[in-house]
Every structure is written in structure tokens, then in C-alpha cells.
């Protein structure tokens, strides 16, 4: 009985010691203050670098200069013109792209014919950078709002399609069978079982498509845009006005954060049935 023997040996030699803890880790906790602290530290270091001449103005303007450029935008009221133009394009393009994407995603998820016909087309066009198609959009939709909205629309359409039909595919088949067994109509099954069941996949798709929409904004506003955050950034770049460039980039970043926050709210509301 070697086990017994070991046991009695240990008993005799010392009073035993606690078992070493080996669990823990692998589960990052939220540390609320760290993010803002790092952000502020980086900004402070950057500002100090610019003030002392360690970072020459040609390389990187000070955050305070970017802030001044931003303040100038606010004072002149140009900010609202740029934001208004961009938000309108984003809203129209993203909404249309998303609605179309959900519709097509649902058809692919529900109908064999649509799946056979459309899924390969979507797979083939999805990876094409929409920026490359910009000249084509200009020919099709003109240099006005059409081509800008179309660029954003196309950019958001494809990820939404893929997320949607992935979501539809992942809806629990047992729930659908349950619906059938209670004699629910086809429309009821789609509306009350498949749509909410696919939502956990569709909503994260929104985050991705919204980010893509903001990325594409700069490209969309390359052509014939007088106002818009993207146009403002492009102009700042061509004028080597780096402070304005940074101000514009900061606006884009804030737009991204805001959209993300809104979608997170929407997710929390629509998916509150999850843990």
C-alpha cells in the first residue's frame, strides 16, 4: 500500500502545508481607470515632446494644435457642415446597405434557389475593396451624392449579407420544428423564430459594417465632395495641414466610438434575453 505509506511518512515528518494555488488568470477583469490613464499619459507625453522640440512640428503637431484646429471648426460652424454631410451619407448608405443585406441574407438563408444563385456571387464580390470600384460608381451614379452613398452601401451590404445568412443558418432547428409542430404560419416562423434567432449574429455584423462605412467615408468623399469629414481630412493632407488632419482623424474616431456605443446599447436592449 504505497499510498498509505507516503501518507504516514508525510504525517510524521511535518505538519503538512497548504496545496499550492494553480488556478486563476486567463480572465481579464475590467479595470476602468487604466484606459483613460494611458490615454492621458500618451497625450501628455506627446504634448511635452512637441513643446520641447523633441518632436518637430513637421513630423507631428502637438495635440493642443489639433485641438485648436477642432476649436476653429466649431467656431466657424464648419464642423456641423462637415459632420452633417458625412452623417447623412453614412446614415443613408449604411441603412440601405444593411436593409438590403438583411433581405438578401434572409433569402440566402431561407431559399435554396437564392442560396445556390446568390451565395457564390456574394462570396466573389465581398473581398473586392470597394475603393477600387469607386471610378465605376462615379460612372454609374455620378459625382454627386449617388456615388458616395453607393460606396458606403456596397461596403456595408456584403458583411451584412454574410452575417445574416450565417445567423439564419445557426438558428436552432428544433425551435423551427417546434413552430411547425404548433402550426405557425411560414411568416410567423420567420418573424418570431428565425429573425430573433439570427439577431445575435446580425448585430455584431452591424459593428463591422458600421466600421467599414466610416473607413469608406474618406474614400467616398474623394470624389466631388465639398463638405464632409473625409473631404476635410483629404484637403488637410494635401495642404500638409497636419493639425487639421489630426483633428479630422479625431472626429472620425469619435464617430466610430459613438456608433459602437449606440450598437452596444441596441445589442443590450435587443439581446437582453441572453445572460
Amino acid at each position: 500500500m504505497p499510498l498509505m505509506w507516503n501518507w504516514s511518512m508525510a504525517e510524521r515528518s511535518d505538519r503538512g502545508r497548504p496545496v499550492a494555488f494553480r488556478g486563476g488568470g486567463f480572465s481579464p477583469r475590467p479595470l476602468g481607470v487604466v484606459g483613460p490613464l494611458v490615454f492621458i499619459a500618451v497625450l501628455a507625453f506627446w504634448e511635452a515632446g512637441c513643446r520641447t522640440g523633441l518632436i518637430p512640428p513637421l513630423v507631428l503637431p502637438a495635440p493642443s494644435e489639433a485641438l485648436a484646429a477642432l476649436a476653429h471648426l466649431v467656431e466657424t460652424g464648419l464642423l456641423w457642415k462637415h459632420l452633417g454631410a458625412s452623417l447623412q451619407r453614412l446614415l443613408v448608405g449604411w441603412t440601405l446597405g444593411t436593409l438590403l443585406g438583411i433581405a438578401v441574407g434572409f433569402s440566402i438563408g431561407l431559399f435554396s434557389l437564392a442560396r445556390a444563385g446568390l451565395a457564390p456571387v456574394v462570396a466573389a464580390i465581398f473581398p473586392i475593396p470597394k475603393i477600387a470600384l469607386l471610378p465605376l460608381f462615379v460612372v454609374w451614379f455620378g459625382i454627386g451624392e449617388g456615388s458616395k452613398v453607393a460606396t458606403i452601401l456596397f461596403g456595408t451590404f456584403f458583411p451584412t449579407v454574410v452575417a445574416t445568412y450565417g445567423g439564419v443558418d445557426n438558428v436552432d432547428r428544433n425551435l423551427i420544428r417546434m413552430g411547425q409542430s404548433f402550426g405557425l404560419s411560414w411568416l410567423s416562423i420567420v418573424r418570431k423564430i428565425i429573425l430573433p434567432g439570427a439577431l445575435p449574429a446580425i448585430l455584431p455584423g452591424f459593428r463591422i459594417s458600421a466600421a467599414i462605412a466610416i473607413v469608406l467615408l474618406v474614400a467616398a468623399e474623394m470624389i466631388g465632395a465639398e463638405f464632409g469629414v473625409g473631404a476635410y481630412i483629404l484637403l488637410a493632407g494635401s495642404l500638409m495641414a497636419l493639425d487639421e488632419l489630426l483633428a479630422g482623424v479625431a472626429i472620425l474616431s469619435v464617430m466610430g466610438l459613438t456608433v459602437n456605443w449606440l450598437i452596444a446599447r441596441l445589442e443590450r436592449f435587443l439581446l437582453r434575453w441572453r445572460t
Partner: protein
Amino acid sequence: MLTTRFAATVRRSALALLAGATVLAGTAVAADDKIKVGALRFTSHSASFIAFEKGYFKEAGLDVEFVYFQAAAPMAVAIASGDIDYGVTAITGGLINLADKDAIKIIGGALHEEEGIDGSAILVSDAAFKDGVTSPAKLAGRSFGITQTGSSFHYMASRIAEREGIAMSEIKLKPLQKVGAIIGALKSGQIDAWAIVPHIAKALARGGAVHIIGWVNDYAPDYQVTTVFTSAENAANKRDLTERFLAAFSRGAADFNAALVDKTAGEDAAEATVRLIHKYVYTSRPYEKAAPSIRNGAMRLNEGARLNLSSVQAQLDWFKAEGLVKGEIGIDKLVDGSYVETY
């Protein structure tokens, strides 16, 4: 000491990234001073090409390597970053802002509008023409293609509007980034008007899709279209090198004017010059097709790299008035007038 060297390194590498300088070509001989010259593959850059091909640079003890760019703006950035030493392009908002940061200086003139020589033309689309836009006076309410706000196209548009008494708010500027995009938009009637150098204008007008309705020279007389510029460092501390570069460049310009602008050198010289330029410009086209474009595009290059300071001043004032450059910069910060004759 340490900080400045660090700063210089950071600046160099950061700007090199921004500039995205392209392919290198050229020769290498030991004893000469190696310099890099930025160029666009346009006829207006012929002075450099001629000086290189005819050995004027070599005679001046310069070993020149060309660095090619797609547009004017990145060339200014590349000068500031030290990736190239000398360049020739239009005065842009970016260039002025870099001068404001003590990075670059204009040291001479190149292409300019001149009475009696076909310069940049004002074009309208066929649709606009049929709609009655037959002279620049009728541009009010029309759209005008530009590459970017603050580009030379923007400047020309505002000059035309000013002379015709049209408020700029009545001309819809359409930034389309690239010359190719503007041509497409003009041909298809998506924009109404544009102004462009003669060889492109004439080629387009010949097709019938667009019409020439005026000349920029009538609106911006003696417009200094392009200038020679270098880093502030070169201008201040490498006088000998810079003088030699300008001298060789001027010899190239003189040959160009004699062969293709004044046509005083005879047809053989003209032919030879066009062939020489064709090595650099329109290289993808056969010579027969390229030659007329090169000849049509011949505008006066400043003799001795003279610089029309009053035109530069006018442009600077305009950039300031448009709010495209910061208010403080004076002409002294933009131009080093010690190298060439100014007028």
C-alpha cells in the same frame, strides 16, 4: 544636440513614409555630386530631361538621379523629408505650408503663361457648350473640375471668376483628385468646365466632346505655373551646388524654348528635342502619336529660371484669402530670391 539629431532622424523617416517616393533611374559616376531631382512625366519638366540627356548636369559636376512622382503635392513632401534635393511643380497649399515650417524654399521659375503663346485653355463639356456656355463669362452656376482644393486648377478657376465678376460661391468646385477623373467627368458631362495645359486641352477639343472657350493667360497674365524649389537647408547652406543645378537646368530650359517654343533652332533640333523628351514623356505611346502632344504642350520655360515674384505673391495672397494657408507666412519665407533674377 542629441535632440536635434533625433528630431532629424524622426523627420526623415516619417516624411519618407508620407512621400512614398517612387522608382529611381539614372547613372552613377564617382567624383560628381550626387543629387536627386523630382520629376513628373510632363512636357513641362523637359528642362531637367534635356539637361540630363545633353550632359549639362554632368558638365556642372552633378550626378543626377530622377525620382518620379504622380502628383505635385508628394514631391514637396519628399523635398522636406530630404528624399529628393530639387523639384519642379506648381505652387500648392501643401508647398506653402511646408515652407512655413522652414522645410522648403522656392528658388527659381519654370513654366509660365506668356502673351502670344498658347497656354492653359478653359474647357467646357459639349453639353454645357450646347447649353450656352460659350465664353468664360457664362460660367456662373456651373461646376468646375479641380483635383483638390488649393490646387492650381482651383487657383485658375478663382482667377477666371474674379475677372468675369462671378462670385466664387456661384461656381461649384468639384474636387476629383486626379486629372484622369476630371477628364472622364468632363467628357461625360458630369462637370461643366475645367482649365488645363494646352496639349491635353487641344487633344480633348479635337475629339469634339469638349470645347475650348478661352485662355487662362487672359485671366492670369504671366501666371507662374511651376517653380523650382529645394529644401531650406540646400538653399541656405549649399549655395554652390544649388547654383550649379540652376545653371544646368537653365541651359536645358533655353534649349527647350529655342527648339519648341520660339522655334529658332530649326526643325531638326525640334525633332531631336521631341525625340529626347519622348524618352521620358508619353513613353507608352509610339513616337508618332506622342510627338504632336509634346509639341502642343510646349509652353515657355523661364530663361535663366527667372521667377515672376509678383505672380507668386498673387498666388500666396490668394491662398491666404481662401484660408488654405496660415495667415502669417510672408513671401520671404516662401522664396529665396538670391539665386535668380526676379521680376
